[in-house]
């Protein structure tokens, strides 16, 4: 099959989980015998743009420049269409992009298309996180357009007023994503996809009224990159290392909950250390160690040094790749019961789940695992086994993407 992937905000080396997920998706589909090409957007002349270093990629890429003086959504869509037409794909994957996605999908409607959503892009125009006032927002753009429009305007107005909105807001304005026409286009686009691939059950439920073929496929782990490392037998004087990786400074990741749990733990014991990958904020606790953000190539070594991994997300975590990586290395995971983490971590088998925002429960679980070395080892081994049987890229590809591709071809064939 000839597969085209459109990702308007792709970066490489990756910034965040979405480009990493796409990279693995394309390379594995290529390995399975498909022909692949990525079409990504870029803004020539912007020194702050996260570039794509094509020489580091093992698949063919085509850059679509999208900022010019006469730039309009129509010309942008035409550029993508021209490039896609020249490639003649059997199936088009609409990957990560924000407000231009429905326009690009509409321009390419003659092709069978699969929608891929990494976060909450269709539900939250404000910042695609569906997270407000420290909790998951109860509204969503597809159902409560009025409320979401006002919320978005409230958050964006200062930036719009400068006359130089940031690229996200610029796209919002350019696509007139606040208009009824955009809303209708978004709804019809969601309905037009032969299938939609999402990261978790929560997203699936939100989309169920718009598309009947929704596949949950968060992502996978490369077992060679994340090799199993048995838990070290630590000396009694050595401290137990609790590790939180990922963008710890991001308020949705729940670092404050971990700090509160650390404070509670430190009242009774001093045999632990919490390591976090955030050196932007200054936190002074004797039991806390701040590390710089680790590139994905080095993070495996960090997991191997840890005894317990914690992911205290307070938003509806789309997937939680970091939890999967920790499990692959053989570490027990304590995670908040949010989004994809619910699907990845099996409570009391590969780790422990707790009610998000509950620092006392997190402290309790930490205490339990710090004191029970045997359980740490058992959970770590069970985690590795779960990754080997459920979450390698080959398995994820066969289980979800292959199915989606052939379904897209079948639906298109039936329609003809």
């Amino acid at each position, binding site marked *: 099959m000839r597969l085209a992937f459109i990702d308007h905000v792709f970066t490489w080396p990756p910034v965040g989980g979405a480009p990493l997920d796409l990279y693995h998706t394309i390379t594995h589909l290529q390995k399975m015998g498909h022909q692949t090409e990525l079409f990504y957007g870029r803004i020539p002349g912007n020194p*702050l743009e996260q570039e794509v270093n094509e020489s580091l990629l093992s698949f063919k890429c085509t850059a679509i420049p999208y900022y010019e003086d006469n730039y309009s959504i129509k010309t942008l869509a035409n550029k993508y269409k021209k490039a896609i037409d020249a490639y003649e794909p059997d199936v088009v994957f609409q990957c990560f992009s924000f407000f231009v996605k429905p326009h690009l999908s509409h321009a390419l409607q003659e092709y069978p298309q699969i929608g891929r959503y990494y976060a909450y892009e269709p539900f939250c125009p404000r910042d695609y996180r569906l997270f407000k006032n420290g909790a998951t927002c109860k509204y969503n753009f597809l159902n409560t357009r009025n409320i979401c*429009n006002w919320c978005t305007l409230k958050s964006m107005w200062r930036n*719009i007023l400068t006359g*130089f909105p940031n690229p996200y807001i610029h796209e919002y304005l350019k696509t*007139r994503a606040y208009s009824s026409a955009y809303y209708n286009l978004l709804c019809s686009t969601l309905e037009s996809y032969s299938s939609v691939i999402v990261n978790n059950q929560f997203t699936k439920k939100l989309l169920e009224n718009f598309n009947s073929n929704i596949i949950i496929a968060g992502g996978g782990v490369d077992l060679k990159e994340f090799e199993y490392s048995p838990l070290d037998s630590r000396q009694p004087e050595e401290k137990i290392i609790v590790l939180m990786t990922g963008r710890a400074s991001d308020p949705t990741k729940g670092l404050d909950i971990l700090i509160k749990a650390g404070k509670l733990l430190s009242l009774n014991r001093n045999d632990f250390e919490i390591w976090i990958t955030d050196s932007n904020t200054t936190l002074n606790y004797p039991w806390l160690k701040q590390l710089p953000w680790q590139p994905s190539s080095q993070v495996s070594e960090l997991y191997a040094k840890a005894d317990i991994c914690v992911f205290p997300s307070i938003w509806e975590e789309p997937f939680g790749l970091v939890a999967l990586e920790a499990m692959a290395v053989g570490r027990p995971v304590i995670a908040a019961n949010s989004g994809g983490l619910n699907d990845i971590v099996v409570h009391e088998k590969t780790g422990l789940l707790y009610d998000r925002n509950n620092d006392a429960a997190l402290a309790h679980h930490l205490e339990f695992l710090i004191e029970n070395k045997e359980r740490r080892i058992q959970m770590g081994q069970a985690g590795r086994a779960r990754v080997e049987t459920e979450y390698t890229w080959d398995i994820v590809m066969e289980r979800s993407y292959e199915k989606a591709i052939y379904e897209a071809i079948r639906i298109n064939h039936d329609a003809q």
Partner: protein
Amino acid sequence: MMHNNIKNIMLFCDHTPHRKLLLESVQKKFPGSHIIGIMASNVNLERMEIELIGETILLNTSRLFLLFRDKNLWYLRKKHIDLLILPFDGFRYRMVAAVLKPEKCEAWTGYLQTISIPTTALAGNFHLLISRVNGLMQLLSVFGSCVATSIKHNILYNSTGRIY
């Protein structure tokens, strides 16, 4: 001005979310240039950032009044600056650009392109006014659309949030 003529670059390193990216981008675009970082005293730089900056100068940019009383501002005026990079755009920063009189001034605000800023107070602030008017027009357009949608569906937004 050609890139290779830019030797001295001055850059505001205040609490910019994209500060690290900004520094890396400056280094990449103008390799070998001397970067003078201007920052408030409470800014903590990472080691990698310190390595990229050749010289740091403390400057209180929190209030225009305090800024113009700061002796360092007048010290900086004596330096020859080829390029002044502003991570934010606004009246205060445009006034700084007018005082420092660099050869060239650009705002790298994360917008799609860098914005070239006139380095005289009058031209700089007229340019700012024009962009604010453009922004206001866009804002009114969005606001109008939101109001129209609300009226159309006979639902006005309130804090309890009625379902559309």
